[in-house]
């Protein structure tokens, strides 16, 4: 009988090198912030991530004021100036037969810093615009995913019984599908609507980033739902909840005032890890041609564009690849830091 069960005072959790007097009288959030700031690797990762976000969102500045290029329109017959000489963006092949037309390589100047893709577009400009799209989708879908999962987990964990069973089986159903297969199936159905999607007054253009954002958000809901639901079920049995019930607190108050603050840290720990996962998923879907659509760019579409140039212009695929690696790495390390800061002994990781 849970309501009469005795539970000892929770053990005080100290981070490495932390003394009891360091944490005395401090709120959990303040403590977490302090621990995070002391974690140099996590802060370094945060700085790197913020830098990537900043340069990506500065893409129009780069394209218009530094590279003076249009990152979205074909420029196959275009020219550019390199070291004072006007040269073709797509250059005729060399050798005895003069076969093969190759995009200009890295100039190491603002214009065509990393060369051009097969359409004659500036790779650096597209990588920055692509980063913007990838991060918008990645961060957006992770936030939506966590929000949906949190609400569902709160409902399931608080009400338990049939509500929990129905929601949990629904999550099991989604979980049963391989993530990419489900995402591809949804993308194939939703992205092939010629005039976009129409839900009542809401119209979503087929090329809108909202479509891949929502698809990716939905397929990962069970991955956040499960650990959060466990936390809610556990918190539901705590004495402070029992005490609130005995004081006549409403269900809404119990959920938002008593339980939510105690499970929020789990969601916050999962958030950077989810962003890393959704950025990767977006890249995979766009690489397969069912995420972001050309002429828009994302890191996945640029890698796809670079596939046909691996022999002559490998940078087209390598640069966005490096951006994905740096982003995912920084988010994973940051996620670990946030976890350590919020709960020094927790072992919460996103299951796959």
């Amino acid at each position, binding site marked *: 009988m849970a309501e009469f069960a005795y539970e000892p005072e929770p053990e005080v959790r100290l981070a490495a090198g932390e003394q009891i007097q360091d944490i005395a009288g401090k709120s959990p959030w303040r403590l977490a912030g302090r621990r995070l700031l002391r974690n140099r690797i996590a802060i370094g990762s945060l700085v790197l991530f913020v830098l990537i976000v900043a340069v990506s969102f500065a893409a129009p500045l780069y394209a218009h004021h530094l590279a003076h290029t249009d990152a*979205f*329109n*074909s420029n*196959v*017959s275009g020219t550019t100036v390199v070291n004072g000489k006007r040269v073709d963006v*797509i250059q*005729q*092949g*060399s*050798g*005895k*037969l*003069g*076969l*093969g*037309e*190759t995009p200009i390589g890295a100039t190491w100047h603002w214009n065509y810093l990393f060369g051009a893709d*097969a*359409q004659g577009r500036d790779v650096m400009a597209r990588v920055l615009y692509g980063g913007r799209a990838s991060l918008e989708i990645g961060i957006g879908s992770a936030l939506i995913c966590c929000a949906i999962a949190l609400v569902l987990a709160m409902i399931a964990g608080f009400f338990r019984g049939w509500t929990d069973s129905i929601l949990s089986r629904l999550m099991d159903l989604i979980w049963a599908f391989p993530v990419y297969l489900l995402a591809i199936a949804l993308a194939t159905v939703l992205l*092939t609507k*010629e*005039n976009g999607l129409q839900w009542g007054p809401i119209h979503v253009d*087929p*090329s809108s980033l909202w479509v891949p954002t929502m698809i990716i958000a939905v397929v990962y809901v069970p991955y956040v739902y499960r650990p959060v639901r466990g936390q809610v079920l556990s918190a539901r049995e705590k004495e402070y909840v029992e005490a609130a019930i005995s004081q006549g607190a409403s269900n809404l108050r119990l959920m938002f005032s008593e339980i939510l603050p105690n499970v929020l840290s789990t969601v916050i720990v999962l958030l950077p890890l989810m962003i890393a996962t959704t950025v990767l998923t977006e890249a995979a879907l766009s690489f397969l*041609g069912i995420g972001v*659509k*050309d*002429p828009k760019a994302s890191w996945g579409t640029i890698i796809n564009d670079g596939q*046909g*140039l*691996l*022999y*002559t212009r490998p940078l087209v695929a390598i640069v966005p690849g490096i951006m994905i690696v740096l982003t995912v790495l920084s988010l994973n390390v940051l996620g670990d830091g946030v976890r350590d800061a919020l709960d020094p002994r927790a072992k919460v990781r996103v299951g796959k």
Partner: protein
Amino acid sequence: MVKRSVIVSSAVLALVLVAAGCGGGKKNTSTAPSGGGAKGGTLLTLANDAFSGSPDPQVNYTLQEWQLLIMTHDGLVAFKRVSGPGGTKLVPDLAESIPKPTNGGKTWTFKLRSGIKFSNGQALTGNDVKATFERIFKIGDSPNAGSWYNGIVGGDACVKTPKTCSLSQGIVVNGSTIAFHLTKGDPEFLDKLAMPFAFILPASTPTKNVSIPPPGTGPYKWAQYAPSKQARLTRNTFFKEWSKDAQPAGNPDEIVQKFGLTPTAEVTQVENGQADWMFDPVPSDRQGEISTKYASQVHINPLTETEYFALNTRVPPFNNLKARQAVNYATDRNALVKIFGGPKLATPTCQVLPPNFPGYKPYCPYTKNAGSGKWTAPDMAKAKQLVAASGTKGARVKVNTLTTDPQKSWGNYFVSLLNQLGYKATLQALSPSLQYPYVQNSSHKVPFAWSDWYQDYPAASDFLNILLGCGSFHPNSNSSPNIAEFCDKGIQAKMDNALKLGITDQTAANDLWAEVDKEVTDQAPWVALMNTKYLNFVSKRVKGFQFSPQWYFMLDQASVK
């Protein structure tokens, strides 16, 4: 990627990858006469995929299999097996000579050569010929049964009831003499007899799709066809050369085509001498490398084919002539040529018929400084005026193309161009096996679709009537090669006249076809892009490379010893 391997055909007409190119003159174009060369050895060729569809000779519609079938089978007549323009000339093959038609072009009487045997040792007879043509109908899914061979008396009835098909009125066999009776004169009848659908098979061949081509009369026979692995041809021990022009003896003892490697891997194998030739086009990313290091192993040959995007004349916004013309004016064909591999491998065009083809007269109104017949530069200002005048600005356009390059890159180019013209364009890329049937079906209402066309045989009707004739549009069918859904009654009447005129005066007919080509170009049902060349990359040990304008690289005429 050129649809060399996937040719899904209509019951009416079809897409083929037969070559042409009446070329010559190019530095690396072989023009040596056929025959000769060291005998023996195995010629190892590579292809990404096995032949699309059934390997049955009367069903398969791919250049890939046809290149092998011409070495194992024969028709009554054949395209001369030489490189250069002579390769489009018809010569007698199993027939002793090419007859003159009688009865107003409705009767053709052939005499079979004697002493020819199939690869199973069975002697060739007139009954085999009759049975072969009946089998075209009986088999049920021979793509051109209802459009090429239904003109034989009894053919229409065979189309309706294939199982009980009898051509006893249409093909009369008297010993080694075979008379074909047609319902009306057909100026292209001999061409059709030279196509692989009409290659003669033993009368005992079952009237159902076979898993490996049955015995033929050529210098090789099919020893293996495993779609997941390879096709293998070995020598036909019953073959004795009867006509060097029609069916010369081959050089290699064995010809193998292995399936499964990517084109990039194929290039590496040929470079390393692990294989002798690759069927697939050399990826543009590797062209510079072979141009620099392996130039002596490269052969570039012009083709009679046209690359184009069809503008659907029945779906907005391209049901508007000005909108169609606008896209034509705006298209930078040089840019598209660059994407394909550059001016060494393709030439811009505005019209349907390819150069050096019957009825071809250079014509290009969609260029700056029009008049010379050549495309020189896009005219964006005029294009924008036309879009504004058409009232179609802001319309959504789905650009349908392949998932593979260069078609995907061409699609991306057009998405960009159409957006610049004020449309809302998006890309729809489909895999090669799906795209062609999809864009043919009018129920999908595809407004802008890539396609290409390689001649079946050298006749203007094979482009104009097949691709833009009223009779080639079949609503809601996957076999409707008129992708633009174009039908102009005035132009169709001219095409019908040209077909009739061809029976008596082919030169006058070709002049009429040139007019048709011009009028169709003015109506802009396509954005014609370019005429391409075939880049053949062979291993160092391949000697005596020869390129037929009809059948491309004649594998059996090369030596690997």
